[in-house]
């Protein structure tokens, strides 16, 4: 549904987006990750046709966004960053306006507004002026606008920004549900959201894609992936460290002592090594092990090691 090819955007001398390519099919929810200023919003603005690319092409449903903007825009719903909405209108008036612009009139318009109000929990503020809404409601009003015409493609720039935990949860569930039938791109810097919602994630940094895969695949890149953490009683720190370090597959061992309990984490040489846990169990036979589990890998650590490689190295030392 969405195809982005070699997209470049230059502002003055700065390459805000520097050769990004990816595709999103129907039924996929693509999480767009990256530090602030990485080029997420700029990319989304080019996909939706708000700004023109310096180079490269975007096609939505087969329509080139630059060459056939109206056909492409008809297929898309867009929630811009900061969720702008006309402050001098009521929620109902604003949604009615966006429905009309999308070609819905009369009964179709009434139904579309009612559906969007329902999905985004706006019933309480339906007749309130947008200006007087709290941030969360305003955000959801703009979100409602993006789904008013039940589009095939949704571009959401930080859809959960400024919402309270309950609202975040509701919006995530909504995105996941809609993702079954639509092609969705959404940006976030909340990593737990990626697990909760995305079928695939792209990490971009300084205008380039630095990682692209399912949340599981990304997690495998973490040095925590496949690491084994165990809590031991009755052994000395050095004994534990020596025994685990001697294993062929061990990269390093981290020890955290807490009274008589010693917590140790052994990291495998190859992240996600499936046999590593068994090796650790073999090696610790005869010890009093109170707890042992295999780590899944941490997205936040992957994120940091990819976007800020130097600082992560420093911390590991």
């Amino acid at each position, binding site marked *: 549904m969405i195809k982005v090819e070699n997209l470049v955007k230059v502002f003055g001398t700065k390459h805000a987006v520097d050769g990004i390519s990816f595709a999103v099919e129907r039924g996929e929810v693509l999480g767009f990750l990256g530090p602030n200023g990485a080029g997420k919003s700029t990319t989304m603005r080019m996909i939706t046709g708000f*700004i023109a690319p310096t180079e490269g092409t975007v096609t939505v449903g087969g329509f080139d966004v630059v060459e056939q903007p109206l056909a492409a825009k008809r297929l898309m719903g867009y929630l811009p960053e900061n969720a702008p909405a006309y402050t001098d209108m009521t929620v109902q008036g604003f949604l009615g306006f966006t429905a009309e612009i999308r*070609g819905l009139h009369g009964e179709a318009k009434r139904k579309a507004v009612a559906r969007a109000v329902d999905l985004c929990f706006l019933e309480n503020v339906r007749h309130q002026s947008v200006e007087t809404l709290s941030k969360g409601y305003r955000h959801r009003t703009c979100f409602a606008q993006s789904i008013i015409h039940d589009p095939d493609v949704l571009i959401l720039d930080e859809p959960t920004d400024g919402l309270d935990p309950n609202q975040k949860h509701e919006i995530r569930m909504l995105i996941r549900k809609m993702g079954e039938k639509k092609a969705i791109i959404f940006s976030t810097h909340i990593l737990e959201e990626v697990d909760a919602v995305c079928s695939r994630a792209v990490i971009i940094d300084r205008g380039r894609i630095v990682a692209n895969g399912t949340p599981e695949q990304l997690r495998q890149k973490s040095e925590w992936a496949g690491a084994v953490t165990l809590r031991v009683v009755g052994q000395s720190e050095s004994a534990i460290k020596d025994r685990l370090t001697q294993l062929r597959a061990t990269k390093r061992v981290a020890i955290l002592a807490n009274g008589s309990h010693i917590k140790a984490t052994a990291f495998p040489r190859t992240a996600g090594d499936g046999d590593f846990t068994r090796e650790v169990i073999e090696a610790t036979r005869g010890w009093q092990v109170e707890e042992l589990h295999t780590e899944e890998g941490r997205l936040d650590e992957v994120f940091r090691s990819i976007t800020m490689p130097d600082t992560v190295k420093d911390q590991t030392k």
Partner: protein
Amino acid sequence: MNSWVNIKTIAKRELVAYFMSPLAYVFIVIFLLLCGTFTFFFGYFYERGVAELGQSFFFWHPWFYLFLVPAVGMRLWAEERRVGTLELLMTMPITPWQAILGKFLASWLFLAIALALTFPLWITVNYLGNPDNGVIFAAYVGSWLMAGAYLAISCITSAMTRAQVVSFIVSLVVCALLLLVGTGGALEFFKNLFGVSIAEAISSFSFLTHFVGFSKGVIDSRDVLFFLSLIGFSLFTTSVILREHRH
């Protein structure tokens, strides 16, 4: 057909927005107060003893508009850019032209409403005497066209900035120039400087020069064309500026 529906939708939203904010009412009240005050006190409406509105009422319009129309036009694009709704508008399935026309027509219609609300003056003058209503009608048409030209210039300045105040001041200055070059003083000045033909060429760009005919009851196609082409040119410039923002 389809594009006309879009233009209408945009215009309707804009017009409703005007009346949702206090601006519309403040504007109309001030405009009517100014009209009344100037017509009766400074226009010597009664003292003239003639049943007409050209000298007492329409005479002041170019000067009222100078301050009032930039205030109506300043929010058109500046506000969209400040709040960020421009991003919504430009990613909707409409062309920039439809948005520009829709917004312009809404404000122009708003000015028409304000102008139409001066009807008590027309009733008064008909009650007191037998004016030439054809002349008055022509003057109303001219006044509205002129207001459109002021408005179109405010459109440009509004598209250039996200600060309404900046838009207001810049369009006021531009409109003041277009107004002042048509005054007698400016004509004399340019005559001495460049000679008669250039001075007249300069003054032919003034709102004032083209409005005089209307206020005397003459609808000259050249004057109509002047205002319409000024509007067209300004809206085109607005579209160029908006397109530039996309790069």
